[in-house]
């Protein structure tokens, strides 16, 4: 008999603090004997972007909407894939190269569903969750441009996004 994978912790966390991958993986699958696969993705701050050195990265979000949007993405992941649980942690505030930005963890019985759901959640988040990055470079501070390639990544899942469209 398996224990329901209802985690005590929320599915979506937006925080300034860093996170611990091992801790989050252990927490998400704790006591759930159905789990045969855990997939995680960690996004980190690069030291270069669009050809320039990046010294700091500041992340802004839309409190309330961001959490709600990611909750809906996780609901959609549950509809599409046979997964047991998913958790997303996204950091905000001032970060620098080497810092972790985002974590997605998914559990399932078999690896395929976790792999897919993890990538789906990241593709969705990149184009639909209200976060904005401002980077500091030797040429000054600038807001990071959205990428058409991220809309294309979401299109693979049959979801249209015009986030990076010019108008």
């Amino acid at each position, binding site marked *: 008999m398996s224990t329901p994978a209802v985690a005590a912790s929320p599915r979506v966390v937006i925080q300034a603090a860093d996170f611990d991958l091992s801790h989050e993986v252990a927490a998400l699958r704790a006591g759930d004997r159905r789990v045969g696969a855990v997939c995680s993705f960690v*996004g980190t701050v690069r030291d270069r972007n669009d050809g320039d050195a990046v010294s700091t990265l500041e*992340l*802004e*979000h*839309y409190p*309330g*909407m961001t959490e*709600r*949007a990611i909750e809906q993405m996780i609901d959609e992941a549950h509809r599409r894939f046979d997964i047991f649980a998913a958790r997303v942690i*996204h950091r905000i505030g001032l970060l620098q190269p080497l810092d972790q*930005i*985002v974590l997605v963890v998914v559990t399932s019985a078999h690896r395929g569903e976790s792999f897919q759901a993890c990538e789906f959640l*990241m593709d969705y*988040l*990149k*184009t*639909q*969750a*209200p*976060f*904005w*990055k*401002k980077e500091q470079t030797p040429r000054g501070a600038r*807001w*990071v*441009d*959205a990428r058409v390639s991220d809309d294309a990544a979401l299109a693979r899942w049959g979801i249209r996004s015009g*986030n*990076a*469209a*010019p*108008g």
Partner: protein
Amino acid sequence: MRIELRYFASLREAVGHAQESVQTQAATVGALRDELIARGGAHAEALARGRAVRTAFNQTLCDETQALSDGAEVAFFPPVTGG
């Protein structure tokens, strides 16, 4: 009706504030954007047609045909870049 406006990221910097309350007769989010553009100055520049401006209605992404309702929260922001 009264609408609570929110601005984020480069739009927030361009208009000079993060939120404001407005009285409007605009029927849609797009008509409200046009009203704000008609103010001129920073709003006209930041929200100008042809610029990549994304919109949310009551904290859900929407397009400019979204109908307004009294007390709603409408947000304007640039394309998102999280993750």
